């Protein structure tokens, strides 16, 4: 009896959850579907859902117009590079804040977050001038540095919250056993911190991948990532829904796939200290 009730409830849960999930996902699904239509089918009235002549034509047109792989490669390097660099700098800082806290630790952390509030458009001219002086315009290294700096506060904040959850007693026990600082980090801390670092890594790749102001304004031909790629499709002449959809799908597909494959890691770590 009880079992059938729970089964029934489970069925209702399932139905509601799937409906909500599909509703939220629908804009993406619709974009992907539209990318396989012809321009005329894309604006057909009534809208065509599945029964249309599937075509790859839009992808061919987009590829012919812009070299997708080059934009993709730049996105990978910039998002990946800035995240790795950020983690290298953030791990020691977060570690020391979590395990050797001082009175000012919280102030420093909040100050770091506040640097994210500088409005990007307001400082475009200063940054552009600095980049010219340093010869960093339209270079990947320039963007890696800028995106690393933008996301560093978030990285430190996330890592800090993970490290704080690691019980201090374990460290003390290790110290009692005569472990050096190096051993302590390598054998005790690192294994415990890996899920947190993985999740930080993923979140920051997503944030860097989607950053669209600096990546567009500081690049030209050499370092332009997918955000610049999409800027050439935003409102072309004539009917464009299908081509826009194809370009959009190409721009978001890599990160969507990465996100889906690694969602367990991302979800497990994405707490920002929200859970005690």
């Amino acid at each position, binding site marked *: 009896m009880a079992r059938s009730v729970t089964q029934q409830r489970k069925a209702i849960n399932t139905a509601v959850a799937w409906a909500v999930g599909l509703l939220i996902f629908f804009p993406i699904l619709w974009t992907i579907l539209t990318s396989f239509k012809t321009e005329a089918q894309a*604006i057909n009235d009534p809208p065509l859902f599945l029964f249309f002549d599937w075509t790859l034509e839009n992808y061919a047109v987009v590829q012919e117009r812009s070299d997708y792989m080059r934009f993709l490669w730049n996105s990978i390097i910039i998002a990946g590079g800035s995240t790795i660099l950020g983690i290298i700098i953030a791990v020691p800082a977060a570690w020391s804040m979590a395990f050797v806290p001082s009175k000012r630790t919280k102030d420093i952390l909040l100050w770091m977050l506040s640097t994210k509030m500088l409005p990007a458009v307001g400082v475009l001219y200063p940054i552009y001038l600095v980049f010219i002086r340093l010869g960093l315009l339209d270079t990947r290294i320039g963007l890696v540095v800028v995106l690393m700096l933008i996301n560093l506060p978030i990285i430190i904040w996330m890592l800090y919250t993970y490290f704080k959850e690691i019980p201090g007693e374990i460290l003390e026990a290790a110290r009692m056993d005569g472990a050096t600082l190096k051993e302590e980090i390598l054998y005790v801390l690192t294994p415990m911190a890996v899920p947190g670092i993985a999740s930080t890594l993923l979140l920051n790749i997503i944030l860097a991948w989607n950053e669209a102001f600096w990546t567009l304004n500081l690049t030209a031909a050499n370092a332009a990532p997918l955000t610049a790629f999409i800027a050439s499709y935003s409102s*072309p002449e*004539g009917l464009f829904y299908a081509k826009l959809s194809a370009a959009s799908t190409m721009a978001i597909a890599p990160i969507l796939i990465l996100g889906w494959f690694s969602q367990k890691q991302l979800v497990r770590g994405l707490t920002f200290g929200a859970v005690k």
Partner: protein
Amino acid sequence: MYLKNAFGAAATLSLLMTSSAFAETITIATVNNGDMIRMQGLTDDFTAKTGHEVEWVTLEENVLRQRVTTDITTKGGQFDIMTIGMYETPIWGKNGWLVPLNDLPAEYDVDDILPAMRGGLSYDDTLFAAPFYGESSMIMYRTDLMEKAGLEMPEAPTWAFVANAARAMTDKDNEIYGICLRGKAGWGENMAFLTATSNAFGARWFDENWTAQFDSKEWATTLNFYIDLLNDAGPPGASNNGFNENLSLFQQGKCGMWIDATVAASFVTNPDDSSVADKVDFALAPDTGLDRRSNWLWAWALAIPAGTQKEGAAKEFIQWATSKDYIELVAENEGWANVPPGARSSLYENPNYKAVPFSEMTLKSILSADPLNPTVDAVPYVGVQFVAIPEFAGIASQVGQEFSAALAGQQTAEEALAKAQALTTEEMEAAGY
């Protein structure tokens, strides 16, 4: 085929003799319009002839403008060629930011460029940008709907006729809207159309002392006329429609008339994209009997920023892309209807091009726009649908937002004009006029 090769070889030879032997890679910033995308597809021809490679940075119009302006004002040097318009060229030329183009070789035939285009892309009689294509605006209308309404479009209609026809053609139940006009805010969107239209109604932006004129009765007439017309005979959400949105509507057969850039003619008559390709005809932009029509004048042009290391190769590219030969090349590959229009007078003498249905009306429209005397009353500025001062883009974007909000019914035309007057006065004071 044989002819083409021989021709190509001869061109290569002549260019080799004038250019340096170094093969370089130049970076070109351009807008994502159809003609430019076609040019990208034909880049191989340029590389074959000169050995230079080209890197394209293709951006949407607003992004492009913002990107190249930042780069030129800070001397960032990211681009060897920038695609700019008639508004930017004289301002940048005056500041010494562009390489003068007055030493182009004789075979380029610079005198063949339409005088209106050449004038608009020069400062102090020096050409600073070469027109890739030029445009005015005109009426594109559906012959079948016009006939159904029992009307006949004259070659040079008045606004009264156009408004009357638009209301007669409208059939909202079947999604047929008598007239599609720009309503999306932006100095290159609704303000281009409205400024040009206001010229026909006898309005102007500034009087001779640079005092803003939005409090004039001519502006009130213009704006009210436009809002009433679009409310009665325009598509829903007209306040979000720019060039692209209207083009899409027209191609779907939802507009009776559309007054916009002459370059749109090749898109609406192309049967691949347009469901009404065989039912379109053209007429001059309307007037109100005051000796000024509502058409504008614009060119997308290629310019070289001063200080680039690759000036030689950049000049070769400009000579290639804006030459008579390039027009032939496009005609050969894509047909005469798709060649970049409005830049060279020889194109309009070409019998092949004369056969294209919209060529004559395009030329007439271009010739009837006069950037030096755009308005009925005298003004201190040049420019038909813009005012060629650096502050204009910023002011007109904000004015455009007020007008767009008035079209959406969020405020009255009078409120919009009062705000426009206040903010224009404010900005002009800030700029020191």
